């Protein structure tokens, strides 16, 4: 059937090869246009005024002097963004995060914005806005925020998930619990129990392109938004909702995106830009500075985690528990809960319990960062697994293999697994040449495995065939890393035509039905599936046209290798018709030929990865050097292997930065101290070696080609793999991420194994 998602185990002609990507030339010549690369006639420069306090009451904002400055065309505050959210807490939080209402909740929280004829005037205007703050006590540490006398960030919060229901306000927004069995009984059965506590500091996705948009709203309530985003349809719905506009009357075009990793799944300053444009009745270009990106967008959580694992002498785990405290920033979310869900997902456990806390602090609103919440939980669990292996005098990989989840395992977050790939990635790691490479002095090796969900979601695709037989493939999932190449491969495979006859474009919101955001590793998976079905629909039309051209029954027409073929001996005299030939005649056979698909893609399945890391430490300075790094991950089917490898390597590199150096440093004044790339130092070219990748292809039974999501999973193992390697190299257990030189030196000095 045309929309059957079952894996068909077919032989591929083009899928799996490595042709050049269609947007490649634009990107190497500077022609490709990103968020800040568009301009409109008469555009104004938008700038945002931000709170210099971590927590403060906003008593008064006087914008009168700013409004009078020559060249200023609009000034907005929360008064220009009335609350239309009708009790929807999620939308209200987004509104309040875009523009503070009665309180500034973190250093960098937007309090006002201006639109002026140039940047210089806009900067002057910001200086003329007088904000009357009453500074309040603040809290920025997750454990401090849980203490009884901590300053309360959101007074309406009563902790959810505990009995009896609390009446007092708290910074603990929610407690979540997952697991099964009887952990107390399980620990009693154990011969060996290991218990340890860990901390990870806050990091940012670190995309090189700051948030940028060009907003234009007219007095008739219609508008356009050009924006760098992972999901222009979602942005449209949210912006329209917050501004009281009709969804269909706000056209959002996704620019090329210069990195997102989850940080561009939510609106930040876009509603403000729209509000400015609406007030000024002119286009407003609003581009964030790097400092604003760090201070006022959506970094990931900092965490504090306790893990306890017990096992019998033969290496079989009898019980495992984890308590995870995640800070969500100043607005509640699900990150602690997600951490609790993923903690033990790699393992087959009879008795397991994980408890997650979502805690509020005076920090920016946390957004997803590639497999959100999983890397920190994996760091804590996989480090403890290594400690357990050492106690049991067992090889670390063998301990994982002994306890790995498999088909039929009850996952620690509840459901039972179908066929999954963790066993194969562990075996592949065990057999990998990396494991046999010699190690020298002050060098250590570590491995870790990681788990992530992958998602499907709402997807629309149009496939239109031009009269010259070339194909326009129009999709709605933003291309974050080369998916247009993969989708073109899929269309070429289905239609049976060469790859370079396909042109894949990302449509704006006016030209296609709703598409969910590119997150959850869903871009190639979902749009790929919709492309397959749209192509199959188009083939039905092509066959019908061929039947007309031949004047035979459409039941006698087959589609093979890009051609219509007449079946049955009596039609043997009919020459095959190529797609191009059928297309050329389309005006006379019924008009334009197209295939469409609207679907909710599901069945993306879960995915696993195992990483191996070799590291060298200088015991005098605490400096570390990654010597060798290997990523092994199950991709189901690699449509374009270059870009699958690219996802593995990129995620690993982010994990390396997170593990060794990146952290948000807050002062006692609650202000972010290192809001720039100099002091928030991400890995540079000279920090890293080549990153080896091994793509396993265990087909996903829920996708016609067996595709699994790949983009996120490989950020999950690095923190743990590197911590395990560094602990082995330094001879001391590392429990605090990032393992920057001062922390390494301190750990070596204190020497706990």
């Amino acid at each position, binding site marked *: 059937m045309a929309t059957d998602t079952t894996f068909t185990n077919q032989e591929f002609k083009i899928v799996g090869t490595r042709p050049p990507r269609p947007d490649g030339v634009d990107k190497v010549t500077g022609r490709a*246009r990103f968020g800040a690369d568009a301009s409109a006639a008469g555009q104004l420069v938008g700038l945002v005024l931000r709170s210099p306090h971590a927590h403060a009451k906003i008593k008064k904002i006087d914008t009168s002097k700013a409004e009078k400055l020559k060249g200023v065309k609009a000034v907005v505050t929360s008064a220009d963004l009335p609350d239309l959210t009708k009790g929807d807490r999620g939308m209200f939080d987004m509104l309040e995060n875009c523009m503070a209402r009665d309180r500034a909740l973190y250093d960098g929280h937007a309090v006002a914005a201006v639109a002026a004829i140039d940047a210089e005037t806009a900067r002057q205007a910001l200086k003329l806005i007088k904000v009357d703050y009453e500074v309040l006590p603040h809290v920025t540490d997750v454990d401090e925020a849980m203490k009884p006398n901590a300053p309360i960030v959101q007074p309406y919060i009563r902790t959810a998930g505990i009995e009896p229901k609390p009446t007092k306000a708290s910074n603990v927004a929610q407690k979540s619990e997952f697991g099964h069995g009887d952990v107390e009984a399980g620990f009693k059965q154990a011969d060996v129990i290991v218990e340890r506590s860990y901390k990870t500091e806050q990091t940012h996705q670190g995309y090189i392109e700051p948030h940028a948009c060009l907003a234009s709203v007219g007095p008739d309530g219609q508008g356009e938004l050009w924006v760098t985003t992972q999901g222009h349809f979602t942005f449209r719905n949210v912006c329209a909702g917050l501004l009281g506009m009709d969804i269909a009357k706000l056209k959002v075009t996704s620019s090329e995106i210069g990195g997102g990793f989850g940080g561009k799944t939510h609106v930040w300053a876009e509603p403000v830009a729209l509000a400015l444009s609406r007030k000024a009745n002119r286009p407003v270009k609003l581009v964030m500075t790097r400092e604003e990106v760090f201070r006022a967008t959506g970094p990931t959580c900092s965490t504090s985690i306790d893990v306890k694992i017990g096992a019998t002498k033969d290496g079989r785990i009898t019980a495992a528990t984890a308590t995870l405290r995640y800070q969500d920033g100043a607005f509640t979310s699900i990150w602690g809960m997600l951490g609790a869900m993923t903690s033990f997902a790699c393992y087959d456990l009879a008795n397991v319990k994980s408890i997650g806390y979502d805690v509020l602090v005076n920090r920016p609103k946390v957004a997803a960062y590639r497999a959100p919440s999983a890397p920190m939980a994996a760091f804590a669990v996989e480090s403890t697994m290594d400690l357990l292996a050492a106690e049991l005098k067992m090889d670390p990989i063998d301990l994982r293999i002994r306890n790995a989840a498999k088909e039929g395992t009850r996952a620690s977050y509840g459901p039972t697994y179908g066929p999954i790939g963790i066993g194969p990635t562990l075996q592949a790691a065990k057999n990998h040449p990396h494991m046999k490479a010699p190690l020298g002095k002050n060098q250590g090796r570590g491995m870790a495995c990681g788990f992530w969900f992958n998602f499907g979601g709402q997807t629309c695709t149009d496939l239109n065939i031009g009269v010259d037989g070339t194909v326009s493939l129009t999709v709605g999932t933003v291309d974050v890393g080369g998916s247009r190449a993969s989708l073109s491969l899929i269309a070429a495979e289905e239609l049976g035509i060469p790859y370079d006859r396909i042109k894949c474009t990302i449509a704006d919101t006016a030209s296609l039905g709703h598409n969910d955001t590119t997150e959850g590793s869903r871009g190639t998976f979902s749009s790929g599936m919709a492309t397959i079905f749209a192509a199959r629909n188009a083939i039905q039309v092509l066959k019908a046209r061929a039947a007309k051209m031949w004047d035979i029954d459409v039941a006698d027409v087959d589609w093979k290798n890009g051609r219509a073929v007449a079946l049955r001996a009596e039609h043997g005299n009919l020459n095959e018709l190529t797609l191009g030939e059928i297309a050329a005649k389309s005006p006379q056979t019924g008009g334009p030929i197209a295939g469409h698909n609207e679907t909710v893609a599901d069945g993306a399945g879960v995915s696993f990865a195992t990483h191996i890391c070799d590291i060298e430490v200088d015991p005098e300075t605490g400096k570390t050097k990654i010597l060798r790094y290997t990523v092994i991950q199950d991709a189901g089917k690699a449509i374009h292997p270059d870009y699958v490898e690219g996802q593995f390597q990129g995620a690993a590199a982010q994990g390396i930065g997170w593990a060794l150096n990146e952290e948000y440093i807050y002062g006692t004044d609650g202000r972010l101290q290192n809001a720039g790339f100099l002091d928030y130092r991400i890995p540079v070219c000279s920090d890293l070696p080549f*990153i080896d990748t091994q793509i396993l292809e265990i087909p996903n039974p829920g996708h016609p080609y067996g595709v699994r999501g790949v983009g996120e999973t490989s950020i999950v193992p690095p923190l743990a793999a590197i911590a395990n390697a560094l602990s082995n190299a330094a001879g001391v257990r590392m429990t605090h991420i990032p393992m920057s030189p001062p922390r390494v030196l301190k750990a070596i000095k204190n020497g706990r194994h």
Partner: protein
Amino acid sequence: MSEGIHVATTVNGDAVEYVCSPRETLLDVLRNRLGLTGAKEGCGTGDCGACSVTVDGRLVCSCLVLGAEADGREVTTVEGLSTGGKLHPLQTKFIEHAALQCGICTPGFLVSAKALLDRNPDPNEEEIRYALAGNLCRCTGYDKIVRAVSAAAKEIRNSNANR
């Protein structure tokens, strides 16, 4: 009384004139006055290299150069890398080796890599990595970028040898 500064310069081989404010950076001028949006602002403080251009052959962060400083000099941006529809070997190798994912850092890397190969036509892996250490990439982990630069260097050496 205007404080604008009149600048006469050469950009990618073409004579160009503009008036800019004393505060404007070369990056601002290229992007906002000349429409050359290939150079990107990733940080504005010279830490990310996305704005890399060459001025009189010298690799610089254009966010740290004033628009006025370009007067009488030769500026080359990523838009000047290909000649008459023919891509530079660095450009073709970047595509061939999938050395870009989102592509925002690519113009900066191409300009920096060209500056490297202009002075060192046969760099080893370490030399490439250190020469490119001023360009941040968040998507690729640099693996395929280093391979692409190596491959381009080889191709340029071979085509020079064959002349």
